[in-house]
């Protein structure tokens, strides 16, 4: 009897993990279908919004804290500064929103691979960290896009690689569960290009990927342009970004699917912050002025 119970519990444990993993990989695999569905869902959402708005405004009325989940190894959007404090463009923007609403901002660094589990379980309120909307439209409730982004290829200066076609047979690195990875594994986007690579290596953070590039075991890294600029400017000479990009996409704040009420508040505040120039000011501070698309 007890043995079967133990077996059941064990089964439940495995199930829980499978569910978790399923969510995690969903954003990488579902891209193709979502692209087409995206426009439909936004229409549906805007319809439901109008009806729900009156009721939905209430649950956020007594909110006092705002827990932002971010990858602390993702400068310049979220990282640890020289004083050991978490900072970055996205975190300062989140702070500005909290200042307007009178919320207390809790910055929770998360393991990027478990971001969906963290969000769904309620340990964070949103993912705000250079979070690419494209390809994940149906997986989260999104704010308006605030930042343009493109996925680019970084190579060593003396590698002799100057176009995407030169990458054939080379070893390319990419961050696990990142937007760059989903672009490269999407049939409709750059899957054909990725198939020409010698190998596509996944890293948990870009620091180790850049070390491998430097050491020569990697030939190229697929990466967000903002992060690429930061990495190159802080590492100095020796790297180039290919002028051909993999795609262009946009960053937004991701909320748990269905959390429209919180999303609407943040959206409205972002708009105000864009109007009064706070966004532009922060963008200049972090060197991403060219990328801001929130007007």
């Amino acid at each position, binding site marked *: 009897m007890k043995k079967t119970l133990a077996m059941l519990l064990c089964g439940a444990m495995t199930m829980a993990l499978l569910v978790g993993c399923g969510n995690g990989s969903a954003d990488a695999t579902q891209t193709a279908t979502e692209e087409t569905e995206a426009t439909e869902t936004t229409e549906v959402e805007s319809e439901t919004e109008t009806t729900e708005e009156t009721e939905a405004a209430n649950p956020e009325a007594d909110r006092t804290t705002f827990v932002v989940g971010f990858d602390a190894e993702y400068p310049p959007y979220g990282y640890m500064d020289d004083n*050991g404090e978490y900072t970055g463009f996205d975190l300062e923007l989140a702070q500005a929103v909290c200042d307007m609403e009178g919320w207390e901002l809790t910055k929770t660094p998360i393991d990027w691979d478990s971001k969906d589990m963290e969000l769904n379980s309620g340990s964070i309120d949103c993912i705000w960290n250079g979070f690419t909307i494209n390809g994940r439209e149906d997986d989260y409730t999104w704010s308006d896009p605030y930042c343009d982004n493109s996925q680019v290829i970084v190579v060593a200066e003396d590698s002799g690689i100057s176009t995407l076609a030169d990458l054939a047979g080379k070893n390319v690195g990419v961050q696990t569960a990142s937007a760059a990875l989903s672009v490269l594994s999407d049939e409709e986007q750059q899957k054909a290009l990725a198939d020409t690579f010698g190998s596509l290596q996944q890293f948990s953070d870009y620091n180790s990927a850049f070390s491998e590039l430097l050491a020569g075991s990697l030939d190229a890294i697929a990466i967000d342009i903002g992060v690429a600029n930061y990495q190159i400017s802080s590492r100095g000479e020796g790297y180039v970004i290919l002028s051909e990009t993999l795609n262009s996409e946009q960053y937004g704040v991701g909320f748990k699917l269905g959390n429209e009420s919180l999303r609407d508040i943040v959206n409205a505040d972002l708009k105000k912050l864009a109007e009064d120039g706070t966004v532009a000011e922060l963008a200049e501070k972090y060197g991403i002025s060219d990328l801001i698309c929130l007007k």
Partner: protein
Amino acid sequence: MDFITILQQLSSGMIKTVGIFFWTLALSLPFGLVIAFGRMSKNKLVSSIFKFYISVMRGTPLMLQLLVVYFGPYYLFGIKLSQGYRFIAIIIGFVLNYAAYYAEIYRSGIESMPVGQYEAATQLGYSKSQTFFKIILPQVIKRILPAITNEVITLVKDTSLAFSLAYMEMFTIAKQIAAAQTTMIPFVVAAVFYYIFNLIVAFTMERIEKKMSYYR
């Protein structure tokens, strides 16, 4: 960013790493004994349950167990997680896992005791619990110390697995500094920290072993 600043930033993580280490040790050592008793129970059912527990704990990765302990309550029962649960989940995960290993070490020690000692103790009028705590256990501890030392040293290094629950222990912070400053120095500091920590552990255990070798 100079070496001293890196060290300062890592120090908060070091405290947390040490915290995980001591909590786990303090709870898993006694808990392991309980499991060892269960495993050695004469009742077939009880012993097979504990045997199964040990095989699951030893047979699956600790990182996976941590994820189950932390996210399990939500995915299984829909309970919302609070910030404070992160640390508790880590300790529960580590204790459950390490207790299974300690249990087997205890068992090896207890079962190595000659039956004659139990017989002699019964003849001298010792009760069952007296026999165990006054005669058997002190000898068992002496015998299993080297094996325990092995596990304790592994524990020091395993604390870095807490990163999977985004707990800001030292290695997690080292990775963050490395990312922000694009340097490898934090990893060097981390390596030195683990090594010194383990030197202290090994030294302490050696001292205890020497103290225990009173019949030699």
